[in-house]
């Protein structure tokens, strides 16, 4: 395994290149443009997946590591990419979800597609970059890139509401970025390096008050980005204003990327012991739990379907952050499993809500009357995924809820266990409200057994690609719920990385 792995650059360069092609695709025919978009995302997925398959033995032994360096080795402005098991897991799930979202958006977006896809692929490149990067400066750049390129996507429809949401999003995003920047600058002045591994090695040399300041600004930046309770105001507005695929990207994928960055910063770069010494871990844990509860309660009163889904995202992200802060192996297992589960479920929910809301007057609950009858199968998929989020078997939500709850109880943290249980009961109530509204006008038909059996064929006769993507998400939710042990190997190796940051540090610095 050479330590100069050009694949890593390719992973970032490929979406960027696709973005350039997509920008000039307004002269193409629609079919060609869709082909390019799907191929771009497909090759990306293939690359990641082949990385996983080729290095399967190494992943199994948890000594999988790839890295690539650009620039002059001995200056601080070297750009360094590294991939270990944790980044591999996140890269894999994120790319998989994005691939499906791209397929959905080829049919969903009917206007200014070239701009949409150019921005979309730039965001994808930045996401891959921020997952793969191994130094703080590049990470900062990629985070800012994500913020800046998602803003026009949020205001893609150009109404007053979306513009307001986008401005708010941009403001909060930039503020978060500034806090991140302050921490970074402080580290640079103290240590003279921005390589995460080098920082990790010598972080204890910094004086205690400065450590506190650095940690607090990092925390603040990530709490703003994750939409944890006191600073969550931008999240529901931004996530509900944009087109459905972008909601899925923001809520399903991007929040997980920020969680990944959180783990990278506070487990690999700054050891978790520093948080424990400063008594910050308990504070963040309780804050995240309160945020989870508040998110679910606010979802109750949301009269807008997409806003409700966004608030429920706040609830789930708070829960994941809280369980990660427990810092035990069981907690990481539950947290990572719930990250995967929530990624699948929330993307599926946002995409199906996008499909359902195409022909309604507005997103308001009163206008949803009878959509359950008009789009029968899609709405059944929607209900199935809803059941997944409240944790019914045989869906993946049950498995992840199980492990999260088990982690809380093993750590004897009963408030956390209460929040998980209460959250899913509240979630049941707010989903039922929408579901019963969708079946408002009751229609009954009597079919014989034979006719009914043949009517099942309509599932297979579906020609609509958007519907197919939604069904794929639903089937994935069911499939992984039944065979969640497929994730055991990647998740366990990722936990190994989190618990042994020393390996990462040695490999990066040794190269």
């Amino acid at each position, binding site marked *: 395994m050479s330590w100069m792995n050009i694949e890593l650059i390719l992973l970032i360069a490929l979406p960027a290149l696709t973005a350039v092609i997509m920008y000039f695709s307004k002269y193409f025919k629609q079919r060609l443009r869709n082909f390019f978009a799907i191929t771009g995302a497909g090759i990306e997925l293939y690359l990641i997946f082949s990385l996983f398959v080729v290095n399967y033995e190494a992943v199994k032994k948890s000594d999988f590591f790839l890295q690539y360096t650009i620039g002059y080795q001995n200056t601080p402005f070297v750009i360094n990419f590294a991939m270990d098991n944790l980044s591999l897991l996140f890269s894999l799930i994120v790319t998989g979800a994005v691939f499906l979202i791209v397929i959905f958006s080829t049919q969903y977006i009917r206007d200014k597609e070239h701009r949409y896809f150019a921005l979309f692929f730039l965001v994808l490149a930045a996401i891959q970059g921020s997952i793969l990067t191994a130094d703080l400066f590049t990470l900062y750049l990629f985070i800012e890139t994500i913020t800046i390129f998602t803003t026009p996507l949020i205001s893609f429809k150009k109404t007053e509401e979306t513009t307001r949401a986008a401005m708010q999003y941009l403001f909060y995003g930039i503020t978060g970025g500034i806090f991140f920047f302050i921490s970074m600058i402080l580290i640079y002045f103290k240590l003279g390096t921005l390589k995460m591994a080098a920082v990790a090695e010598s972080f204890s040399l910094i004086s205690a008050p400065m450590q506190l300041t650095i940690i607090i600004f990092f925390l*603040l930046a990530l709490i703003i980005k994750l939409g944890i309770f*006191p600073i969550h105001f931008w999240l529901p507005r931004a996530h509900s204003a944009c087109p459905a695929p972008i909601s899925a990207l923001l809520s399903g994928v991007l929040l997980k990327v920020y969680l990944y960055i959180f783990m990278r910063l506070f487990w690999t770069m700054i050891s978790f012991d520093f948080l424990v010494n400063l008594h910050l871990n308990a504070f963040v844990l309780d804050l995240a739990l309160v945020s989870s509860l508040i998110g679910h309660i606010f979802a109750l009163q949301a009269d807008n379907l997409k806003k409700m889904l966004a608030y429920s995202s706040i609830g789930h992200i708070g829960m994941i952050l809280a369980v990660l802060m427990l810092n035990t192996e069981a907690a990481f297992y539950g947290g990572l499993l719930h990250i995967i589960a929530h990624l699948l479920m929330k993307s599926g929910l946002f995409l199906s809500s996008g499909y359902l809301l195409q022909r309604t007057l507005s997103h308001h609950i009163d206008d949803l009357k009878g959509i359950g009858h008009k789009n029968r199968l899609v709405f059944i998929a929607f209900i199935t995924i809803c059941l997944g989020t409240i944790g019914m078997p045989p869906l993946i939500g049950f498995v992840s809820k199980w492990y999260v709850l088990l982690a809380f109880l093993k750590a004897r943290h009963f408030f956390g266990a209460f929040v998980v249980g209460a959250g899913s009961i509240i979630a049941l109530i707010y989903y039922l409200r929408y579901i019963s509204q969708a079946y408002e006008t009751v229609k009954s038909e009597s079919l014989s*057994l034979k006719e009914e059996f043949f009517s099942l064929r309509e599932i297979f006769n579906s020609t609509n690609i958007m519907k197919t993507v939604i069904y794929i998400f639903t089937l994935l939710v069911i499939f992984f719920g039944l065979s969640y042990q497929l994730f055991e190997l990647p998740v366990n190796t990722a936990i190994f990385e989190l618990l042994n940051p020393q390996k990462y540090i040695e490999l990066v610095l040794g190269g």
Partner: protein
Amino acid sequence: MAVIWQQFLSSFQFDSYFPLLAEVGVILTLMTALAAWNYIKENKFWYYILTFVYLLSSLVVILTNDWFFFLFGWEMVTLATTFMLAWSDWKLVRQYFVIQFSGSSILLFGALAANAFGYAKIGAINSIPLQFLLIMGIGMKSGLFLFHFWLPPIHSEAPAPVSAILSGWVVKLGYIFLLKIIPLEKGNTFLFLLGLAMVIYAGWQALRSADLKIMLAYSTVSQLGFIALAIGTGGKYAFYGAVLHIIAHGFAKTTLFISSGIWQKEYGSRIIYDFKDAISRRPVTSAAAIMSLASLGAVVFTAGYKSKYLIKSAQTPGILVTTVFFLLGFLSFLYAARVIYWIFIKDQDYSNFLSDLKHGFNHYQIYTADVLALITGTLGIIVVSFWPEMPAGVLASLADKDFHLISGLRDSLIYLALAAYLFVNNNGFKIKVRDNLSLENYLQAFLNFVYGLSRKSVKFDTEKIFEAFFYNAIFNASKKLYNLVYQDFTIQLLWIPIFMTVLLLWQQIYAYF
């Protein structure tokens, strides 16, 4: 993938009486499937898919000893039975699902707590608080006292085969679980008291209801009380009594709900007094129903007698226990005998020609499937009553057990004489039919009570009071909180510096506490 499959298969336990219970569950499900063949008209395909899912997952619940698969199976049971209620009303689906989901949340909490406290497999749990938590968990699902409020409305409104499934077997799953976790030697006093309360309260309610399905639902709660009481007592014979009672009551209640469905189609009514001359109009149905009711009322030689005798014999002997159990038995006998009394009554009004003509036809055709289901149920009761040691000798030590049939015969005759005296003098306890039971009405009564504390009782518009409570009240409360947090943009922004200060001064704040 292979690993989870092996784990799943190896978690199955085929010892003691649980395989027997699983077999009984399969037979009962097949009975209801037979009965549903003509009862369910629309979407038959989906109904049978759901039945199949229910069958498999209930087997998992009974046989597995792994917490994960146990809860997995139970949630699947919940999901399958929930959607079966859709053949009656979607409103029921919503209510049942909300209640079952709250119950399973408590159960999930309890199960994971047990798991975290070192009970890796499902087995006897010695810690009293954990036992309490798990009893509370199944309380909502299996209708323990005070949590049983949802059971009569939902079991009586469901389609007859679904009621048979719910009342005959789904509620029993909780008690089968309790058989595993309550230690055999000690029992649990709390459970015993709950069971006693259930027998008395629900028995009285069953006697007070004129609607057959509501009466059956209350009698389910009452008989479940006997099971809870037996498990709470502890001891070998009490547990055997519980197992026998689960089986006997399963057969009897399934048969009764199926016959209630047939009578309902035949007479177009669910009121007990309308089933006049049922014995000659639907002879097979009535025979099966009489058999099951005799078992419910613990008439000597029937299955119910054997199980109740075992439960009684496990108590510390004494005059008090004898009296209490005599009275409890009398209560069950009374509400069972009342139905039998009314199906023998013939005083039909044949004064006009039309009603006479109507009487000449069977409104509801006699289907082979129905008859088959009823015969299976009757056979089940007969098997339990004459071979309490069960086929293959699962409860082998019961073969030589003396059931004191003579004293049983004496008690039954006394019951019969008392019941006959009471019925003849009170016109068969003919009671005014109560309004439809529903959770909305319960809620209205509750609200009336709360409202009435301050002023005169008012009539609420109950049309959507369930929704009004669950949705509007909760939503308005959350809206208030939302408005509190969401001030204008500048105040939102203020959170960032406030929060930063808190974080920066966190050390001092932490030290202060």
